[in-house]
């Protein structure tokens, strides 16, 4: 009899790790037969967003939002996967023994949280997310769940990102103060760059914005999705003198590259949540740090965790220790998820790669 009760309990209350389990290839959903954001080629991949550490080429089948699939196609070419399937926000589909539903993550255009429900247990793999406003993507949606998988890129209480619009004001003040210099803004080419451009427009800046070559494709894609960014020009071919007083968006690594020599006495800015910490800015030779992040800050992470109502929190990529500690101090079950290959900021955060998607 006892045995039967145990069996019944097992049937209705699956352990969360039976639904999603970290493996070398990424977060694996056995009952659903897929991986979320796999770092190695797998048969079936479900992808949260288009950043290259989450969306890789070479999978058999890929399920993602239209924007994410488009971005992968832009980056990797037409044959980036065996087959693709589009899913919209709010849409739910069945994969094997589980149901999968996509919700906006507010991280970049097309970014999604993935809710995986098996029996009565709902796990939300939030991917990268932010709860701060962003005029270039659908706002973050809170999804109540039993287990919440959160990133921890800025999982330390020193990371409190203010209003991004104020940071853009700082940039414009500097342009006014040094009209004879060019302003070079390092920003990750997918998401951050377009957000900075949009914020500049919202702040009333209506001069042409110049683009590094690596920015062009993805930025034009954003425009094609109806995000108005005003007049944009490729910086290639411009005369040095003509760039005085202008703003150019470039991948962060380019701002310290020989490429930057084409600008008249450039002021090097960098739009990133890492800019909150002075040493980070100085390491990269940044003169004008702009604290603009595509990830939730400490207050955002903790508020979101609390609001999901989840009793168990899995913490991945970033400053897991602090966030796990915070969860436990709030009486939540929490553990770091040992997933490799995402962000990996703690160990390799310094430029040129590290800025990546902060």
């Amino acid at each position: 009899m006892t045995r039967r009760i145990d069996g019944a309990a097992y049937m209705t209350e699956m352990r969360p790790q039976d639904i999603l389990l970290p493996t070398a290839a990424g977060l694996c959903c056995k009952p659903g037969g897929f991986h979320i954001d796999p770092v190695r080629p797998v048969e079936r991949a479900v992808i949260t967003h288009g950043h290259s550490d989450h969306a890789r080429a070479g999978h058999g089948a890929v399920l993602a939002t239209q924007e994410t699939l488009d971005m992968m196609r832009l980056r990797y070419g037409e044959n980036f996967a065996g087959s693709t399937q589009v899913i919209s926000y709010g849409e739910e589909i069945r994969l094997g023994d589980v149901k999968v539903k996509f919700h906006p993550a507010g991280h970049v255009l097309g970014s999604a949280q993935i809710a995986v429900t098996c029996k009565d247990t709902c796990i939300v793999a939030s991917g990268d997310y932010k709860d701060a406003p962003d005029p270039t993507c659908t706002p973050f949606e809170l999804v109540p769940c039993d287990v919440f998988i959160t990133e921890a890129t800025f999982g330390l209480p020193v990371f409190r990102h203010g209003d991004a619009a104020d940071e853009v004001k700082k940039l414009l003040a500097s342009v006014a103060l040094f009209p004879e210099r060019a302003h070079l803004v390092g920003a990750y080419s997918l998401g951050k760059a377009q957000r900075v451009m949009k914020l500049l427009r919202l702040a009333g800046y209506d001069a042409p914005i110049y683009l590094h070559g690596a920015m062009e494709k993805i930025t034009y894609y954003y425009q094609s999705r109806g995000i108005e960014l005003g007049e944009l020009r490729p910086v290639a071919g411009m005369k040095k003198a003509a760039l005085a007083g202008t703003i150019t968006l470039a991948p962060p690594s380019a701002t310290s590259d020989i490429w930057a020599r084409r600008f008249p006495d450039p002021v090097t800015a960098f739009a990133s949540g890492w800019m909150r910490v002075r040493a980070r800015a100085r390491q990269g030779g940044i003169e004008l740090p702009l604290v603009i992040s595509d990830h939730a800050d400490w207050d955002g992470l903790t508020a979101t965790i609390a609001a999901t109502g989840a009793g168990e929190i899995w913490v991945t990529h970033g400053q897991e220790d602090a966030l796990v500690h915070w969860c436990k101090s709030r009486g939540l079950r929490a553990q770091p998820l040992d997933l490799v290959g995402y962000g990996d900021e703690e160990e390799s955060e310094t430029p040129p790669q590290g800025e990546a998607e902060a």
Partner: protein
Amino acid sequence: MNRFAELLDRLAYEPGRNNKLRLITAYFREVGDPDRGYALAALTGALSFKHAKPALIRDLIASRTDEVLFGLSYDYVGDLSETVALMWPKAAMAAHNNPPPPTLTEVVTTLRTLGKTELPKQLERWLDELDETGRWALLKLVTGALRIGISARLAKTAAAALGDKDPHEIELIWPGLSPPYLDLFAWLEGRSEKPVNRDPAPFRPVMLAHAIEDGDFAALDPADYIAEWKWDGIRVQAVAGRDERGQITARLYSRTGEDITGSFPDLVPSLRLPGAIDGELLILREGRVQSFNVLQQRLNRKVVSPKLIKEFPIHLRAYDLLGDDENDLRELPFAERRERLETFIGKLGDPRIDLSPTVPFASWDALTAARADPASAGAGEDADAVEGVMLKRRDAPYLPGRPKGQWWKWKRDPHIIDAVLMYAQRGHGKRSSYYSDYTFGVWTEGADGDELVPVGKAYFGFTDEELLQIDRFVRRNTTEKFGPVRHVVHEGDKGLVLEVAFEGLQRSPRHKSGVAMRFPRISRLRWDKPPREADRLETLEKMLKAEAAEVEA
């Protein structure tokens, strides 16, 4: 305060000297008295209040935040003030009252009069009132650690630019000025006469030397230079002058202008002739100069006991004369000042003050030989306290700062050993993401055969490129982690050999190895050398014998 904080914040990132000047001058122009005066004082290190200890800041943050979260944050940020400024949670009360943030003047004047017990509450209030940058600047200010890459000279230059004056003019009157420099700004803005320096024994900004490189000699003519020994002591300026009543005031200044008279009362009676001597503070026993290790016993003492004075008799070895009675000699060529100095020291006739001898040489080869063997080139028994030679242009006036081509220092070669990297720790500040602090060891006979024993720590000497290489090596060869410290593989055939240069050795009961190095730095990476071939503790002990005996004498 927030405006000053904004300036500091921008300065901290601005690498260009001219842009820094522009930012500071713009601040002086925009901000009125007395705030800008206190800002100038802060930038020149002229503010005097009792600094808050880091422990107090830690207590404050501990009362507001979770200890573990603070620890993790501090480890990540690498700077106490910044960590606290970033994570400071404002009190709920503050949001309601919303008092205006304090001005810089308010902060500085309050700190000057505030009792020790009132400080924590006051700081807390300010932290609640200021924004993140304001908190950061406040904490830097109260702990006395601005360190934003602005020299006092640069700040004065920016002030001079306000009135289109030569910064040298400010240097000359500076010792008589005090915050908030109302008279200085009035003069700079053309509202009043130039302030007069009324201090009877003012500090004169010191002249510094460049390190000479092998390639420099070809362009220099030996006949243009006078050489002296470079003493391994402390550079000081000993100034005596008459006040309005004709009484002698004597002061001893460090090279940065800090008044250190109180630490050396035994030298004061010897400063009875009005004048300003540039020289080296040394310990002399029976006429013989003692090593720096010995001199160190007299430094940073709160109480200077008669016993200390007797056992470590202080001495001034003079090498330049900047003022002779009422006459400012700084415009004179060095050769002439040297003659005046010889006369001055002769007239003084005091056993505690003597002349640093010149080192005669006719060619660079002759000087090279003298530098290699000071004992037989005139330094005699004092040779151990010689750390190289100084070259001074005969025709050089005494210029503040480090003017090019006037004075050169040519240090003796350091001691070198090959040691094995054992532990690495992340650096602070700019280096907080790099493993840049290294503990290294040498071989010694242990219970189970040879083992490495740590003999020192070094965190500079390497190039940026080498830092990246070591950092990579550390990350790939970590065997264990203890918080911010990584245990790096160090076996006979696995590990990294560091060539370590250092200036001297001391016996140290605090170190397991029993020795402590002076001024150790990484001089080379020996990727080519297997750790088993690194040096042994016996080598260091041999070096030690000669040096250590003196301290106890």
